[in-house]
């Protein structure tokens, strides 16, 4: 059932699906450097759902303190070094050491909002602990997480995969989305399709995911 709930900051499952498809299309159009977001339909007891599922973006590098400082370190090295450096080797060392992340966006039927689930890996495939992830988040996001009563990170079971993932708790999402949407000039219908890009513009900051500005202009 479609519901216009932007006044409450939440959205129906059907609208989540519509916004997710729209968002992934716009992302793929405006962000060719990044892998695509993919919609994974929920498969339950052999029946594949038409409109229930989740978005995935996997094995990506986030804009973390660590990755940024690695970049600076490499630049300094090459400045100090007069010899021609092997570019390929430098790049390999940098990306070999990089931490990769999987991001999933699923719908919460309880809170009627999207929820972010994420995992980080070292280059050898080992999972990152929550402390290790927090160490590399942009510093302002750690501040937000510590001070805000609206978002906090916990470890919970993924709603569709039977494994533990880190998540930003959704209980406050409706409140800040209400504020965010009320500040736009979109009419209700337009707000709904733009829900996910709007939501990600905030959530993305807490995990260092940059959302290209072009995504927000109509296609």
């Amino acid at each position: 059932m479609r519901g216009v709930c932007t006044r409450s900051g939440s959205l129906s499952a059907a609208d989540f699906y519509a916004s997710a498809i729209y968002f992934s299309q716009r992302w793929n159009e405006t962000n060719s450097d990044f892998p695509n977001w993919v919609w994974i339909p929920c498969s339950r007891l052999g029946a594949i759902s038409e409109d229930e599922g989740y978005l995935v973006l996997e094995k990506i590098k986030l804009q973390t303190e660590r990755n940024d400082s690695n970049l600076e370190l490499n630049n300094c090295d090459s400045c100090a070094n007069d010899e021609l450096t092997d570019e390929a080797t430098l790049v390999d060392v940098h990306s070999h050491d990089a931490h990769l992340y999987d991001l999933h966006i699923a719908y919460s039927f309880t809170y009627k909002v999207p929820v972010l689930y994420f995992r980080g890996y070292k280059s050898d495939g080992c999972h990152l602990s929550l402390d290790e992830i927090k160490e590399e988040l942009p510093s302002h996001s750690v501040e937000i997480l510590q001070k805000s009563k609206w978002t906090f990170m916990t470890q919970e079971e993924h709603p569709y995969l039977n494994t533990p993932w880190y998540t930003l708790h959704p209980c406050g999402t409706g409140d800040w989305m209400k504020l965010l949407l009320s500040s736009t000039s979109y009419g209700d219908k337009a707000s709904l399709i733009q829900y996910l890009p709007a939501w990600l513009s905030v959530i993305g900051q807490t995990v260092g995911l940059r959302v290209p500005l072009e995504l927000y202009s109509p296609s």
Partner: protein
Amino acid sequence: MEEEATKYIWEGAIPLQIKLHESEITSFPPPPPLMILGLRIGYLPLLVPPLKAHFSSTLPPGTDNVWFDYKGLPLKWYIPTGVLFDLLCAEPERPWNLTVHFRGSPGDVLTPCEGEESVKWSYINSLKEAAYVINGNCKNVMNMSQADQYDLWQSLLKGNMEGYLKISSRLKLGPFGEDSLPSEASETVASSRPSRIPVRLYVRSVGEEIVDIEDAPIIDSWDKISYINRPFEIYKEEGGYVSLKQALKSLLPETFNTNSSQEESSTNVKDPNAPDFEDDNAKLRLVRVQGIEPDMDIPFFWLANCLRNPEFYLHICVFISKQPKLR
């Protein structure tokens, strides 16, 4: 009647026989298993103190990282003990034989449990979620004083029903269905919210060829179980009476939708007298709530009020069989 039901829920317990995993036994002869009652509304990690006392002399050195398994399946510690039993033992096993481990929790499969605090956090979180489902916000739970939260949790730990109800009744989270009766003559747009009941469904698929549910094979992976954490919603206009059968159908739409190749038959949707799901993709084999197999025509709201857990969630275990599709 509902008071009696609440008492029944609180007094329900599963006789457990818990042995220590053989890799952690360092003494000879090996220690006997511990026989202990697990409250249906409780959680396995809360049994760690007596288990630790019983097994500590034989444990290898190291830090504790407690987890349980049933026939090799690591058990999700945040699911109430009674639900685990109803779901995983198609044929109720008495006592229920479990294995406890104090080392090496499978972190890639199980969310880590750091003892009582983890369970308490998970519990309060569920209570918050239930409050959100029922009221549209969780202010009443968030605003509980530290003392109340502490007393509530201690009451649950000790199976103290009176102590628990004294505090939980102040949260004004029930009974379900009361607000589905219009209290004012005029209803504004904003108040035509549906009534929502917190429900957690655990669905197992059993082969058609299994005649007796009790012969269903042992679950060896959580991938064989569908967990659906979704509120049951009903709009006031739809009328007061919803049966358990109808509620399950609405919570599992893809499972019970008729084949789209069949003609639109509206009779299957709302007719409580329709035969059991015969035209649907799946057949309900067994439904268990608090160890009871309720009649499918029972009013759903009444069932939820009587058999819900203390955190206001109704946990339902469902066994289904797929119908062979004719194309």
